[in-house]
């Protein structure tokens, strides 16, 4: 009987691995393909606020978004960053005051462990990234975003990887948009480079034409600031 189980496993395992591999490459291909069906309903959004200048740029995008299309909105910022969520909160409250109803239920604010602090060494970053990734996975499973907006720094990488894995396991589909910071003129940031090279971002924007020339799959659509 033990022998039969082993034999069954020997057959089943390669099949599962093959199926998983096919699924993985299918998801990799599908990400980056524009939607073929017209979209009408609101989409659940995960908006990653990266602190400082990153948050300022992201809020420029958020204020331009059509609020009825991109709703509900889940804002996530690093645990050590107490300014960013406050800025998003002030903005969401201004929407309520300007008469757009129900926005109060449509905005949510959450914090996440940070994978890397400014100036932290790359070696200790490995442990903190692992912790941040587990937390990110938990958040992504809870939120089940359909759209993700991010622009670095470190905080967004584990969230994007988790969302990608969710796609591979068939637990939810999300489109990931990465908008590289305006401060990056000649080189991508670490998070940007990883999301670009691993093809995790569905659409990848840069804010300088010379950067687009270096990374041809990126899209230059002007400056946010």
């Amino acid at each position: 009987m033990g022998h039969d189980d082993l034999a069954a496993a020997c057959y089943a395992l390669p099949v599962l691995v093959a199926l998983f591999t096919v699924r993985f490459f299918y998801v990799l291909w599908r990400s980056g393909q524009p939607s073929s069906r017209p979209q009408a309903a609101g989409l659940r959004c995960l908006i990653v606020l990266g602190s400082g200048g990153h948050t300022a740029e992201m809020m420029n995008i958020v204020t331009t978004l059509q609020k009825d299309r991109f709703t509900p909105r889940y804002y996530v910022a690093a645990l050590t960053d107490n300014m960013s969520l406050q800025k998003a909160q002030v903005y969401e409250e201004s929407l309520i005051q300007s008469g757009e109803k129900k926005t109060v239920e449509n905005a949510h604010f959450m914090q996440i462990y940070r994978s890397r602090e400014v100036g932290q060494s790359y070696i200790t970053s490995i442990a903190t990234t692992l912790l941040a990734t587990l937390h990110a996975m938990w958040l992504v499973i809870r939120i089940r975003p359909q759209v993700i907006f991010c622009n670095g720094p470190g905080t967004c990488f584990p969230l994007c990887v988790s969302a990608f894995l969710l796609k591979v396991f068939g637990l939810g589909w999300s489109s990931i948009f990465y908008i590289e910071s305006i401060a990056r003129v000649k080189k991508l940031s670490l998070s940007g480079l990883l999301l670009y090279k691993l093809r995790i971002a569905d659409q990848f924007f840069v804010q300088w034409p010379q950067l687009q020339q270096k990374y041809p799959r990126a899209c230059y659509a002007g400056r946010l600031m």
Partner: protein
Amino acid sequence: MADRERRTVFVTVGTTCFDALVMAVDSPEVKKALLQKGYTDLLIQMGRGTYVPSKVSGDASLQVDHFTFSPSIAENMRTASLVISHAGSGSIFETLRLGKPLIVVVNEDLMDNHQSELAEELAERKHLLCARPQTLGETIRAMDLGTLIPYVPGDAKTVVTLINKFLGFPDD
């Protein structure tokens, strides 16, 4: 005497620690250069730095004052005739939006110094002047603010349009 027009230079390091910049603006060389250019006041926002510049008042020389943090930095920028800033994108674009002449000083002590990229690119496009702490005096002496080109702020419209299209939303 009091109705002499005040021309203030506002120095900001944001939330960073950038003693090299505070030391540079506190040097006799830079103060003399600013005075020669017709500035009357020097206000330094020193952030988390530990170097405390000297406070000076009196009519013959540049009046110097400093503070660490303030919620009204936007107001300081608005009333300034010249802004000298660290290379953070927040300070840079806030100053450019106000249309104030700007000298960005790059902090060379930062580990991952990608910040100089933005300042150098904007300097190449003549929206601001870019210096290092040790070249600040020279930059001020040589500066001609008439050659600076106003920065036209961008917006997220194109990016948002492309995102809408990607997701299958109809055009507005």
